[in-house]
């Protein structure tokens, strides 16, 4: 078994095939070697191709809704590639705006699995000494201001993001001081996941009104994550960092 110091350190980014995760990957590839995770192999490879030094990045194709089998796939993937993970950014998320009456338990479980439980399970695996050799230093979960506030049609999503932030705090307390754990809470950012909301003219107009600084860019979120992963944030853990153009401060919204 190679010694931990000989293995290259990677940042694992889930949800890297589109939206914030894709932007995150392209941006962080300037500073880190990456393991890109997504469900869609083709789109994941397209993200890889857009990264700095694509050949140095790894692709791990996996649907995180299938939480129960992650322990059978992630450890072998790391071993086969001789990789250790020093940072973990969970950008994968499912959002389906549905009235409560249309939600099935199966769907709600998929949302909870992808958005929250996969983050817990991946963290658990990365903390196993014989899997990741104590390499993990920093975790950032992409949560949402929806973890703090409700909205029509968002029951499963809000529940899952609140769960994710609760998980973040518990992990920060349990895994500190060796590992820092934080969440970034974006407001409305235009991505493929949120496209339907922005395409609806009524919703789009309300979004413009509600956001003191207007709607956000994926790069606003990647800046916050890059900061939290850096040495400059060495004393920040257990924090829900709101990056939302002032939306959650706005009572008129």
């Amino acid at each position: 078994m190679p010694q931990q110091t000989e293995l290259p350190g990677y940042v694992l980014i889930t949800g890297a095939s589109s939206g914030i995760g894709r932007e995150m990957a392209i941006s962080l590839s300037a500073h880190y070697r990456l393991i890109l995770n997504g469900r869609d192999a083709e789109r994941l490879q397209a993200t890889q191709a857009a990264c700095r030094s694509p050949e140095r990045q790894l692709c791990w194709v996996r649907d995180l809704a299938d939480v129960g089998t992650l322990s059978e796939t992630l450890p072998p993937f790391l071993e086969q590639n001789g990789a250790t993970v020093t940072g973990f950014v969970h950008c994968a998320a499912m959002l389906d705006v549905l009235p409560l009456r249309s939600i099935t338990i199966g769907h709600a479980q998929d949302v909870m699995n992808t958005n929250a439980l996969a983050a817990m399970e991946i963290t658990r695996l990365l903390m196993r000494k014989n899997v990741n050799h104590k390499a993990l230093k920093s975790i950032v979960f992409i949560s949402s201001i929806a973890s703090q506030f409700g909205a029509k049609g968002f029951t499963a999503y809000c529940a899952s993001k609140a769960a994710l932030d609760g998980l973040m705090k518990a992990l920060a307390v349990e895994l500190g001081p060796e590992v820092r754990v934080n969440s970034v809470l974006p407001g409305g950012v235009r991505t493929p996941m949120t496209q339907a909301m922005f395409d609806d003219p009524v919703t789009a107009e309300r979004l413009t009104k509600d956001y003191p600084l207007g709607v956000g860019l994926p790069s606003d979120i990647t800046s916050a994550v890059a900061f939290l992963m850096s040495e400059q944030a060495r004393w920040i853990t257990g924090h829900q960092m709101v990056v939302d153009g002032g939306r959650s401060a706005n009572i008129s919204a």
Partner: protein
Amino acid sequence: MDAAFNPLQLHGRHFLVTGASSGIGRSTALLLYRLGARLSVVDRDEQGLASLCAELSPELREADPLVPHIADLSDTAAIEGLVARCVAANGLLHGVVHCAGIQAIAPVRTLKIDGWRKILAVNTEAALMLGKSMSSKKVYAGENGSIVFISSVMGMVGSVGAVAYSMSKAALDGMARSLSLELAPRRIRVNCVAPGYVRTPLFEQTETLWDDATKKAVEDLHPLGFGQPEDVANAVAFLAADTGRWITGSVLVVDGGYLAR
């Protein structure tokens, strides 16, 4: 991305930093200057400000003056005039970082009105007056505006003996939220940074009241231990620079995990 490019850079921007003679304010002034900003530094401690200027003098850039102003911010009526002098000396402002603050640990039964009003004046009212000054076209440079108030975790949790201090910081957070909405149309962002226990002169005042067992107990409440002023300065820089361009009305907690427990 160019390897030499620093996303926290502040070239061409003028910041006012209060409480710059020591602790978090001093660390913030040093960092913002080194990130390329020109500064107006304010404190009531003349010697402290002089030592800050001396520390930066080997790194001084002609294009970016560092201008000290002696002022006691408990005189809140004089703040608009102070800001006008800062602008006259160093140009229009892109932002303000209010690090000046006072603390006085005392049981509530010994609280005197003059004492807590002074805490409120420096910690909260001065911040409001600085924010108000920034809303003027004669003060604000018109773009990349960023106001940062140094708050405290004590604004969100309680502690024995900290009634007036907690009040001043909770009020500061609330004030910043509404101020952020008012100044958003002018593209001035307003945020608080809430530090936990950071090794500064203000903290050392509190520490003298603790025995070793208490010190250890408090430190153990922090998953990452006590902090350094640089930890807070880094968060201020993040909010001051373009990295924080979509962040306003928020409280950024820098506390080694204290509030997560």
